[in-house]
């Protein structure tokens, strides 16, 4: 840049001198200038004015050229049938069709390895859909493009001359200087009052057959020196402004033409890449590439209608404004301009008419609105693309869920078949044969996928409150209901709440629903009575409950109304009073720790167990107590020595026993001494 400036030093100096001297001459005023006028002023005037006029004419020409270009590109609507697109798309489609085998292999391996994201359940429906879409991708994309075309045409009444009309409404025709429009020579009827100019002699003679046709006349070159000095700088300034605004108009039309051209090319490339994009949609790791494609496609396809809509809006409002249908805004903004550009100057035909006050404001508004339209159109295109991507994601999710649900309805059957295969293999000893022993693998994999899907649903409900879950239970789908019940069971909140519409019958049903996803065990740990009339199964569940898990068990399981709850009471009794034997492996598994945790964490259930089991079966009589002390000394020790009985009460048994006279008040060996000595106490503490 500096080097460039160094080389042009003389030019810069000349320009500076010219500018400063011009300013000096103009600012000195007319009289002073005249005094020193030696022809230099007139020369400078012509030079400056001529330069400004030429620039104005060039830019004016550019504007109409760009408007024409934009019009031309907009008129090109048959995008999808371009030869390049047709050939490119076809080759890529054939190539991608070969890749399906590869994807099938990936799915097969993933299913065997139980890699659920790539498993058969997740990818097979997508693979089938993609196989169809890839072969119809051009048609489908064509539908989207045609749709945008319909939208575009909706705003354009005459699509063949849309931009020409805009240019007209903007007053761009007026940008051309009136004298520039004039031919270099013309013929004229020599009749006063008729100033029509004919471009050739024949038409002139034909039109002025009653009069004389004079010509050819060369229009006189405009003489800048004729303009008085005080007006000249005002005219020059106006011309300068006009150049600026014409440049803006040129930029707007150039940008429009450029963006429409880019749109065309980008859409071509996207159409060619469409089969590959849909192929990328299948695999989770390449899905983002499809999303990128889709986003770009939507953005560029809908750029045209968005841009055209705002341009149409701008134009229609100007037309109303110009025709007086809309109130004139800012009509009084530029009264000063009126003084500068008088009729005299416009009559002199050196001033673009756009600089007339009434044209000027219209022109400014038009430029502003066009630039705004471009920005808004770009934004709308992007927003449209974003929302289209999120919409497609949701739709894809919906399709996945639907197919998933359809498959899941048969899930218990699949699981049963898997179990049957497993049992069959075991029965026939075929499970030892290397390959055949894996025959139940697909079923196992299917179960695995099912659970993975369920885990997603569980994740959804994880952070909600229990009351919220209960309230939404009725409206949830099958998987959701199972997930809610499972979540409530895990929290230890699986209680019916009629106010929230979560009834006892719902809890009962939820066991069956959760069974489909292998999650019924959580619910059954909370409500073992729901197993039904099967003591062994209930005893097994209850024996497997850890002290920490007791918090989750519901007191309703011990209500004693159903056969199941009766079994639960019996099972708990056997846990606390029996020893684990070979005959009864599920008895006697509860330790004193169960009771201590239960009393602290789940008072409700503990009270129920106390009233139903401890009071009735352990401490109801001395014989039973002795029996329990023999069988389960740890339980007896805890129940005998627990300070917590101050809270949950144990007077029932005490009262019974207090009826009798206390047998031994104190151990005779200690009574004799009456009191422990400090040494004895210390000794005892050590032992």
């Amino acid at each position: 840049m500096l080097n460039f400036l160094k080389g042009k030093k003389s030019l810069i100096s000349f320009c500076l001198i010219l500018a400063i001297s011009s300013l000096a001459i103009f600012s000195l005023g007319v009289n002073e200038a005249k005094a020193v006028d030696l022809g230099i002023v007139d020369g400078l005037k012509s030079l400056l004015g001529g330069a400004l006029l030429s620039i104005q004419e060039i830019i004016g020409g550019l504007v109409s050229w760009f408007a024409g270009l934009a019009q031309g590109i907009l008129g090109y609507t048959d995008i999808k049938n371009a030869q390049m697109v047709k050939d490119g798309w076809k080759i890529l489609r054939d190539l991608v069709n070969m890749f399906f085998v590869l994807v099938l292999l990936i799915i097969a391996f993933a299913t065997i390895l139980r890699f659920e994201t790539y498993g058969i359940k997740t990818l097979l429906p997508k693979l089938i859909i993609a196989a169809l879409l890839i072969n119809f991708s051009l048609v489908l994309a064509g539908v989207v493009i045609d749709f945008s075309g319909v939208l575009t045409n909706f705003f354009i009444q005459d699509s063949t001359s849309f931009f020409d009309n805009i240019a007209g409404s903007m007053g761009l025709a007026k940008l051309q200087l009136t004298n520039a429009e004039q031919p270099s020579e013309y013929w004229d009827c020599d009749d006063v009052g008729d100033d029509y100019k004919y471009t050739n002699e024949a038409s002139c003679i034909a039109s002025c057959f009653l009069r004389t046709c004079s010509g050819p006349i060369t229009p006189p070159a405009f003489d800048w020196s004729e303009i008085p000095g005080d007006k000249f700088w005002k005219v020059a300034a106006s011309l300068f402004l006009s150049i600026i605004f014409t440049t803006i108009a040129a930029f707007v039309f150039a940008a429009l033409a450029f963006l429409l051209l880019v749109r065309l090319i980008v859409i071509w490339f996207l159409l060619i890449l469409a089969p590959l994009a849909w192929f990328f949609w299948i695999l989770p790791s390449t899905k983002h590439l499809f999303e990128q494609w889709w986003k770009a496609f939507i953005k560029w396809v809908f750029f045209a209608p968005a841009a055209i809509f705002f341009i149409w809006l701008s134009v229609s409002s100007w037309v109303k404004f110009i025709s007086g249908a809309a109130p004139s805004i800012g009509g009084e903004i530029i009264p000063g301009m009126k003084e500068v550009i008088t009729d005299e100057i416009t009559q002199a035909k050196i001033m673009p008419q756009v600089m007339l006050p009434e044209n000027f404001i219209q022109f400014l508004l038009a430029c502003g609105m066009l630039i705004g339209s471009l920005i808004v159109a770009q934004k709308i295109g992007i927003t449209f693309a974003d929302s289209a991507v999120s919409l497609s994601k949701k739709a894809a999710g919906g399709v996945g869920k639907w197919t998933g649900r359809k498959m899941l309805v048969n899930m218990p059957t699949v699981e049963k078949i898997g179990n049957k295969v497993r049992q069959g293999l075991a029965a026939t000893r075929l499970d030892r044969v290397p390959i055949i022993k894996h025959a139940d693998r697909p079923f196992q994999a299917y179960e695995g996928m099912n659970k993975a899907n369920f885990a997603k649903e569980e994740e959804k409900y994880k952070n909600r409150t229990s009351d919220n879950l209960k309230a939404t239970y009725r409206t949830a789908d099958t998987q959701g209901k199972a997930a809610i019940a499972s979540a409530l069971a895990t929290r230890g909140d699986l209680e019916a709440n009629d106010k929230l519409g979560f009834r006892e019958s719902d809890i009962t049903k939820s066991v069956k629903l959760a069974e489909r996803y292998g999650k019924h065990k959580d619910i059954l740990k909370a409500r073992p009575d729901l197993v039904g009339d099967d003591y062994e199964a209930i005893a097994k569940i209850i024996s497997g409950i850890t002290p920490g898990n007791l918090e989750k068990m519901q007191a309703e399981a011990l209500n004693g109304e159903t056969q199941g709850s009766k079994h639960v009471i019996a099972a708990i009794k056997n846990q606390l009073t029996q020893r684990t034997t070979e005959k009864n492996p599920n008895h006697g598994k509860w330790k004193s720790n169960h009771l201590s945790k239960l009393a602290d964490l789940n008072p409700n259930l503990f009270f129920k167990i106390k009233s139903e089991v401890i009071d009735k079966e352990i401490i109801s009589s001395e014989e039973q107590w002795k029996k329990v002390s023999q069988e389960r000394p740890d339980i007896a020790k805890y129940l005998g020595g627990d300070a917590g009985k101050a809270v949950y009460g144990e007077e029932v048994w005490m009262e019974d026993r207090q009826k009798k006279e206390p047998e031994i008040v104190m151990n005779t060996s200690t009574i004799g001494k009456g009191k422990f000595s400090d040494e004895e106490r210390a000794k005892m503490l050590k032992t």
Partner: protein
Amino acid sequence: MPTLAQIKSVQGITNPLVKQKYLRYFQLPQDIRQIFFALETADQIYNVAKRNGLNDNQLWGASYTAGLILLGEINIINFVKALQEKCKLREEPARQLARDINQAIFLPVKESLKQIHKVPEWPREREPEPQQTKGPQINGNVVDLKRE
């Protein structure tokens, strides 16, 4: 105040006295709540009772009374008297039992118990120092025969 979850957890209890006691339990300081239902506490009471030669009835009575002390239902001042009543003991064995329970269970949480029972000092908070048998003071005016 007990939390909503705690209130909810005792809702199914039908006996109002038990419910009330549970609500009181939930308001206890954390250290007391920790020892309340703990296996160690039960073991300690059991061991103390066996050491004091209590029978099953008396063991139950002692545990119950200890629980009521922890809960603040019986004031520590009345501990021996309550043990006498519940365990049908005479005063001296009851006092010994009280000392042992105090040593084993109450002293580790004495600070919290002092607040509940509103007493400035907990019984046996400071263990009496064993008396040292002191030899005769040898002053300058007494002849030390051993040295001579």
